[in-house]
């Protein structure tokens, strides 16, 4: 296994866990946490690929990761704002209860 | 704290927003800002006060009932312990009530000494009230320490006069207990000369301070009509702009002989209360200067007055003075025996505290603490 593969495996693990969290937890905030985990795993991939690319001076992967961090922060803010707004109206963050409260 | 207890109180002024439940916090009885054992049951929506219920009585000492079982004289030291910051004025109010009841004349010299001690008491009380207010505001005690520095001098003078710093037990029916010690008036004059400098110092430290302004202006506002209806007195009332000072209204003692003005605020907020206290201190210095100029010679107490076996005629009397915290009154009914049939205190601290909820609702929790501090209470008097 090469060093790159090590990082990628870690990223894949974190990504899978994030996916599992997003798919299985009932709480809307936990779903957001899962999404954050996945985004982070992607970032790790980007950085790892950048580092082990033939031309790391080009900075492309690193830049991609930086932009991804910035956008992820915005995503978190909006997502959590939505959850809070939803909670204000329905007094719940339970995803299982959401379909029933449609409309 | 159940909501049922809140319901029995006045109707809430603010409807809580429908986000989540209210946070109910019991501030006290052991809380750093409560000046003693006092509890405020506060219901918060975020940090906004929705309901506030003052709970007092933790320091109840049965003062009034004890006084009905004790001789008239034996109640005098207990009055010291009502508002333990101003024992001199408490003594005076009680003495005035008994003098009215028994029709006792007070010698000239004693009247002057009463005014001097009362005004000194007012200054030290207002100074410490400001200090405590700033303590609530988190000024780490600096103004409080300055206030205590001056208060210490006044208390030392009181000790020289009466033998005790705080529990003076100095006034007697028809005068004062003991003759002035040697050079006492000179010492008072020296202290009074130093007071303007101290007030300037406090003002330099606080009056222009932007943080103090931000914290106090427009906070804890009390409207004049509510203040009058609730029976608020003292600096709190005058801060709302109502011109009511018993020194001017009753002209008890010999206050009609002195030139002084009554400072009035226009907003009724905490800043006005602070400033009214500062300005009253300055006026008190003026009164002291005038009083110290011409203290007459003569007896200090009505010589006909008996120490033991004091039995006033049956009747009733209400004696009141402008205490530092407001109208302090004593209501007495005599049945001709050696102890009062009924003895009732009108404690300014308690009555000024009744509008706490009205002042606090809709404000931040942090302002509750400040508003409470600006009322200037002593729990010994609230709970009696």
């Amino acid at each position, binding site marked *: 296994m090469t060093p790159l593969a090590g990082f990628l495996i870690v990223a894949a693990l974190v990504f899978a*866990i994030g996916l599992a969290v997003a798919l299985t937890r009932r709480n809307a905030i936990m779903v957001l946490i899962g999404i954050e985990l996945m985004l982070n795993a992607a970032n790790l991939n980007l950085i790892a690929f950048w580092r082990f690319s033939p031309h790391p001076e080009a900075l492309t992967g690193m830049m991609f990761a930086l932009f991804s961090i910035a956008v992820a922060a915005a995503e978190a*803010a909006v997502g959590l704002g939505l959850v809070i707004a939803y909670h204000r109206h329905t007094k719940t963050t339970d995803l299982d209860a959401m379909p029933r409260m449609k409309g | 704290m159940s909501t049922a207890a809140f319901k029995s109180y006045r109707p809430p002024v603010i409807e809580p927003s429908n986000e989540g439940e209210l946070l109910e916090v019991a501030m006290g009885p052991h809380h750093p800002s409560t000046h003693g054992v006092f509890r405020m049951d506060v219901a918060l929506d975020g940090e906004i006060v929705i309901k506030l219920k003052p709970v007092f009585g933790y320091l109840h000492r049965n003062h009034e009932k004890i006084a009905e079982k004790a001789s008239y004289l034996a109640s005098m030291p207990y009055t010291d312990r009502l508002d333990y910051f101003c024992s001199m004025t408490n003594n005076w109010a009680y003495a005035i009530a008994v003098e009215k009841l028994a029709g006792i004349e007070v010698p000239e010299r004693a009247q002057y000494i009463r005014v001097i001690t009362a005004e000194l008491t007012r200054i030290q009380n207002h100074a410490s009230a400001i200090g405590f207010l700033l303590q609530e505001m988190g000024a780490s005690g600096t103004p409080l320490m300055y206030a205590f520095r001056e208060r210490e001098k006044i208390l030392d003078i009181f000790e020289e006069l009466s033998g005790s710093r705080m529990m003076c037990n100095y006034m007697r029916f028809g005068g004062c207990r003991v003759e002035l010690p040697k050079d006492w008036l000179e010492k008072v004059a020296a202290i009074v000369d130093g007071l303007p400098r101290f007030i300037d110092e406090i003002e330099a430290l606080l009056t222009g301070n932007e943080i103090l302004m931000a914290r106090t202006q427009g906070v804890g506002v009390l409207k004049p009509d509510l203040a009058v209806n609730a029976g608020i007195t003292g600096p709190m009332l005058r801060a709302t702009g109502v011109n009511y000072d018993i020194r001017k209204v009753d002209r008890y003692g010999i206050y009609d002989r002195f030139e002084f003005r009554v400072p009035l605020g226009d907003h009724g907020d905490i800043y006005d209360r602070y400033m009214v206290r500062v300005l009253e201190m300055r006026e008190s210095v003026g009164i002291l200067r005038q009083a110290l100029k011409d203290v007459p010679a003569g007896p200090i107490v009505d010589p006909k007055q008996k120490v033991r076996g004091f039995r006033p005629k049956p009747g009733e009397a209400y004696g009141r003075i402008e205490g530092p915290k407001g109208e302090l009154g004593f209501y007495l009914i005599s049945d001709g025996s050696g102890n009062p049939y009924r003895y009732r205190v009108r404690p300014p601290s308690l009555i000024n505290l009744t509008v706490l909820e009205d002042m606090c609702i809709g404000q931040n929790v942090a302002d509750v603490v400040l508003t409470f501090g600006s009322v200037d209470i002593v729990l010994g008097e609230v709970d009696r």
Partner: protein
Amino acid sequence: MIFGLSIAFWITALFTVAGALAAALLKNLVHCALSLTVTFAGLAILFLQLDAQFAGFAQMLVYIGAVAILVVFAILLTRGAGAPEYRIYTSSWLAGIAIAAAVFALLAWSVITSLPAGAGSAAPDVTVLSIGQALMSTYVLPLEIVAVVLTVALIGAVIVAMHDKGDAKTHEQKGGAQ
């Protein structure tokens, strides 16, 4: 050195994955958020190990300093902190796990079977200066777009999470009337 990777890497990787697992499995939401922070920190350290200083610090600043706090605030605001729920997984949890497992299997398989990359070139000399120059030249358009996105997100989040303005006003007036 295990599989050509330093011990530091393995320790960090362990922490990262353990944090993520804890976030997935713990009942109490605040504990989940705190474990998530451990993962964020681990990832930041992994970035540093990959010589991406700036990205690592940005990760720390943004994720630990902001996103974790945001999550925690959201948990408290939705009263999710106190009582752990009776059942923390959705009714379709089995399917979710299966999908996640499948995705991991696919990723792992592709990583392991793919050709080894041109491993271990010397550490690139990436200074903040070069990143700044890149941002201001090659990536100036993305930078501007990100700025717009962030501003929009900021305004959007505020609007979404804000109280209904009418309500708040009446409260204030009532309070003032007192």
